[in-house]
């Protein structure tokens, strides 16, 4: 069995290469004790366990909201937001601050985010 195949490092990532303690049941990579997830009972690597934790639950969207019929939601929210009030963005899983009308502004022309200088994220090179 080779060394731990999980990545370590802060600004530069490289293979950990620590003493192997097992293999991840999800990705099959060899992992040391430091890179096996206690929450998974040491059966998954930290990476795989965290990715699984981040996935939306069944019936929820990526923000953790209950998935509703899009058209109904759009209509209801549009009526609500045009009634003279604007909500304060909470950003939480319960947030209804942004709606389908808002997200449509970000439906790019099919260009993957990685293709833009935004890198799919926040600010560019300042």
């Amino acid at each position: 069995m080779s060394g731990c195949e999980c990545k370590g490092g802060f600004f530069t990532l490289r293979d950990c290469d620590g003493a192997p303690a097992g293999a991840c049941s999800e990705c099959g990579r060899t992992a040391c004790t430091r890179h096996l997830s206690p929450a998974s009972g040491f059966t998954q690597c930290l990476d795989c366990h965290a990715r699984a934790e981040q996935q939306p639950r069944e019936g929820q969207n990526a923000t953790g909201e209950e998935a509703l019929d899009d058209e109904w939601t759009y209509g209801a929210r549009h009526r609500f937001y045009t009634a003279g009030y604007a909500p304060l963005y909470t950003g939480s899983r319960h947030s209804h601050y942004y709606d389908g009308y808002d997200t449509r502004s970000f439906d790019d022309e099919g260009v993957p985010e990685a293709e833009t200088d935004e890198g799919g994220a926040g600010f560019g090179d300042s």
Partner: protein
Amino acid sequence: MTLLRRPRALYAAFDRFPTRKGASTHIARFAPALFTEYDGGLLYVLGDERLPAHQVEGDVEIVRYSVPVENFLERAVAFGAHLSRLLDEAGDTLEVAHFRDPWSGVPILERERRYATVFEVNALPSVELPYTYPAIAPRTLEKVRASERFCLDAADRVVTPSRTTRDFLVSEGVPAAKVAVVPNGADPVPTRPRPFEAPDAYLIYFGALQPWQGVDTLLRAFARLADLSELRLVVCGSARSRPARAAEKLAEKLGLGERVLWRWELPTTELEPWLANALLSVAPLRATERNVVQGCAPLKVLESLAAGVPVVASDLPPVREIVTDGVEGRLVPPDRPADLARTIRLLLHLPEERERMAEAARARAARDFGWDRSVALLKDVYRALRPSAAASSAPRPTEEEPDVRSAEGPKVAVA
């Protein structure tokens, strides 16, 4: 349960980390500054399919939000929602939370909390998003702006790298006493051997190629220097992006052909030799709202000074904070290819002047822009927060700001 530690400090940024971008450099300097003050902490950033979603490095725990949500806004909200879940785990032990954007800031600020908060404003999405998404709806932009205002109002301190940005924030109603300027930094770049494929004489542009960077102005200026047949322009882009491909097309259209060398995503160890051996570094920032009103702190200019390379840059307020015209380089009117070409030509004919500027650039960078100095200033901000942290722990909403939550979420009246 995701977290393995009980962090006292959180640094959150809706940025992929690490990458070759300036934002990454910034995070790599500032997050450790926070963590050394609090014996470690939690770094929450964006990931992708290659970067680990969860790491522990010494006292630092790193969580990267890695769900591939295609839509930018949905991704930003999902990023915040996951941060909210992490705060459910970590909120009790946190003493300070530092964030770089409203996508992180709102989940941090909206909850009842005992931790102090620092909003690091390098740029605001409401200013920059229209460049990337020109069709963004005004109502959506107003919502983004409202979330930024909420963060600016609710955060205990605001830090920004530029005096221009500080003035902009104050003009937007942020109390001046709340804003601290913590400049970007650049460490000295040692002399490097010339890259083997480097031409004898070249100008350099490096960094990202968003529209506000003005690379089109540089290409048009360079086209006016066609008589200098040995001169080359080296463009080291942080990503071969859509605007980068547009720049390549423009170069082709201008007939620049092999006079422009394109290099992409160079690691620092490869970029530094290109920079250190350039005759001049050009930062042709455009006179846009993003650069002029909001402000910026261009790392490319700082790093050029630190490498002892004279800079030719646009004469804009945030650039004037870093470069004095005629001392470390030359400042030229923005968006004027003819003026840029003329200034470059003049400096190319004055090697002694360039040498004098190179020395001044190194001295200025060492005196005013070392990362150590920036980190020390940031640590001062954290230390000043400690005694007042208790005072800022008042739960939200307050009596003066009654809770008006409904099933649709909290509301405030539109003025």
